[in-house]
């Protein structure tokens, strides 16, 4: 830690310390990755398996900071400007005032990632705005490792909040807003979760740091970097059409490293309760992810049940040319097929996938499988790959008695509608050997050879 920040840090830190000590025990807090199955109900759950048979009580992280001097002061940003008084930071007071309230049961934690901390008692009906996915908002800008004494900084990202605060490699973050982080009694408490819980609206939070240079502890206010920049605009279609109540709008920001490479989804938002266009949207994305040499585009769909009503036919370029506000996203009706359309529509492709599940595995795809294959197709993945996967997974192989000969015969019977001849059988058994018995390779080659690859 750089020494010049020490003075400010100590002054402000003491004030924060006073503000946070009072509620160091927070019943709402749970360790990172706490199970949805409550600790008290499964003291011997096999999930915690050999060597991990105890699930700690989730209520108390265990650290109470010894009392500090109370200085109701102002604290300062890295340029020495006063920021705001401690008492004005709402998130510092709420958990202590309402200890019985679990996160997720009210609106207090709307900016918090609830994924890891929701408790099963509040599962039904819990949640934030329908379908929006909560992503972490704040970043310190360090690569770190959780240890028994806190979160050890491995590397500080250039230009990050951590660097501005004077943090260095080998400094150890002991607490965030008074809550111990790192491994506490063998249970990891992610400092990122504590940032989400305790940072104020501007990203300010206090951290107790052990300085690598002299081993001393000191309290340091840090203004975290926001992971969110946003793109906003409207989704429109040309038709005079009212959307059904069940309509769901999905809009994604995609990045492609170069032409021809598969796109990566950086941000996604789902919008419901829409009746007609224009549909305003806002997508939050992490500005630090943007690389000027890559391609950024928006992709959107409007679906109802399993049916796609509208989708973007042409990806909308954003970010690179400075376009981040008031972006108009045109979605086109899938009911009207394009003149000369050669390819299957989004829904037709999914119907085909479902059909293959039924034919080859004799069951319907599970919701997660549907989701994954839809996302595969939406990213431009080939239908053939879906077929290859279904025909080569363990379930299909087990249905072929986990036997290579039977597997080759099944392929012939299901794809060509006829049994394999002896010559065909021995040829494909040879290919199995050639491909180290990796079935996806064999199936891909088989579909190609019989002219069924699409």
């Amino acid at each position, binding site marked *: 830690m750089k020494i010049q920040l020490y003075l400010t840090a100590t002054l402000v830190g003491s004030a924060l310390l006073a503000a946070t000590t009072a509620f160091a025990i927070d019943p709402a807090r749970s360790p990172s*990755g706490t*199970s*949805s*199955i409550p600790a008290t*109900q*499964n003291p*011997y*759950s*096999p*999930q915690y*398996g*050999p*060597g*991990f*048979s105890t699930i700690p009580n989730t209520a108390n992280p265990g650290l109470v900071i010894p009392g500090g001097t109370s200085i109701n002061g102002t604290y300062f940003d890295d340029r020495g400007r006063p920021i705001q008084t401690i008492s004005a930071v709402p998130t510092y007071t709420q958990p202590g005032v309402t200890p019985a309230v679990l996160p997720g049961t009210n609106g207090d934690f709307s900016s918090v990632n609830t*994924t*890891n901390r*929701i408790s099963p008692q509040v*599962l*039904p009906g*819990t*949640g934030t705005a329908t379908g929006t996915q909560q992503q*972490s908002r704040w*970043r310190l800008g*360090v*690569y*770190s*490792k959780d240890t028994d004494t806190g*979160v050890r900084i491995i590397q500080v*990202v250039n230009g*990050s909040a951590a660097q501005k605060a004077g943090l260095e490699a080998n400094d150890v973050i002991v607490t965030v807003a008074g809550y111990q982080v790192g491994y506490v009694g063998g249970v990891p408490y*992610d400092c*990122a979760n504590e940032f989400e819980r305790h940072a104020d609206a501007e990203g300010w939070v206090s951290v107790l740091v052990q300085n690598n240079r002299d081993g001393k502890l000191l309290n340091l206010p840090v203004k975290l970097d926001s992971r969110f920049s946003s793109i906003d605009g409207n989704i429109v279609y040309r038709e005079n059409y009212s959307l059904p109540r069940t309509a769901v709008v999905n809009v994604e920001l995609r*990045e492609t*490293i170069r032409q021809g*490479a598969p796109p*990566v*989804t950086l941000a996604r938002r789902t919008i419901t309760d829409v009746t007609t266009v224009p549909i305003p949207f806002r997508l939050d994305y992490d500005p630090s*992810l943007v690389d000027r040499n890559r391609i950024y585009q928006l992709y959107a769909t409007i679906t109802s049940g399993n049916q796609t009503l509208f989708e973007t036919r042409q990806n909308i370029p954003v970010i690179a040319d400075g376009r981040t506000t008031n972006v108009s996203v045109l979605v086109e009706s899938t009911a009207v097929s394009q003149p000369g359309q050669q390819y299957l529509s989004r829904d037709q492709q999914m119907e085909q996938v479902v059909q293959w599940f039924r034919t080859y595995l004799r069951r319907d795809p*599970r*919701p*997660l*499988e549907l*989701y*994954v294959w839809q996302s*595969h197709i939406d990213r431009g993945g080939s239908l053939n790959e879906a077929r290859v*996967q279904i025909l*080569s*997974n*363990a*379930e299909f192989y*087990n*249905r072929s008695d*986990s036997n290579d000969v039977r597997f080759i015969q099944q392929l012939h019977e299901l794809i060509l509608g006829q049994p394999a001849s002896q010559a065909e059988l021995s040829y494909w058994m040879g290919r199995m050997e050639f491909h*180290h*018995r*990796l*079935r*996806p*390779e064999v199936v891909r080659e088989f579909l190609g050879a019989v002219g069924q690859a699409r």
Partner: protein
Amino acid sequence: MQKLGALSLLVGLLIASPLVKAADQPVMLDPDLPVYRPVNTQLKGELKLAGSNTMSHVAATWADGFRQFYPGVTVTIDVTGSREAVSSVQTGEAHIGLLSRGISSDEVVGYQKAKGHYPQVLAPCLERIAVYVHKDNPIRGLTLQQIDGIFSTTAKRGGEPIRKWGQLGFPGAWAEQPVVPRGRSGDTGSQVYFQEAVLLGGEFRTDLQNHPDNLELLKGITEDPRSVGFAGLSYDNPNVRAVPVAIQAGTPYVGVDSPEADAGHYPLVRPLQLVINHDPKQPLPAVEAEFIKYIFSRVGQEDVIKAGFQPIPARPANIALDAVGLGIAR
């Protein structure tokens, strides 16, 4: 053996986060899983994987996805069995091992001696283990304590030994019929997992019917309606029925193939693992590093589902990445 402790911890965490926020919302992947962003340099080279038969298919799925970003990388997979997973990384024959059972302390010690550092074991996907009965068996569900009672002599979960169907509330002719437990042999992955997870390290009954493979095991159940056995979800077939499992009496029974299971609530999941040669003093070679980042990313976890296994949530993914120096910035 500190390393072993850390490993178990990792495994324990895998199931620890719910995948969904609410049961009535669509089941999704954990939205906080890291996004895989390819690096700008055109990676080239060979990446050799070796080990578990169970994992070869999901490994091939990862390899296919990875090559879309890096056509210059050749990925080879040697299906040599879990037995070879650690040793082939130790000797350098493979870059990454595929291990579908726990690593043994002998393997850890041997590896440490040879390489001067411990092997790093990471768990990027899970296999659900189903408890199967005959298709006509009407049992509604079993608790872990009851399953322990059926399979063990030790009953470490505190229940009574269960030897007759009457003890599970079956009336009439069923009541006096014996419960016939079916398993594999001592050192197979699923047998070892079951012994540790359900029997809490206790002993199997001496009259356990041992089968050479899972298909034989399921055939045994099909032919004898008094049977109970266990095998991966992918072995389900119309002649058998997977029994919903409850963690204990009074908690809900969760079907192995239910939306609740998709949400991470099914209790019997076996971690499938990677063995990584990570010298803590050195960064991983670029190709290995990118492959591991790919596997623990959102797309890598979508591949897990495509291959028929259960994905992991964000938190254990981040811990795994941290463990090999690839952690995402906080």
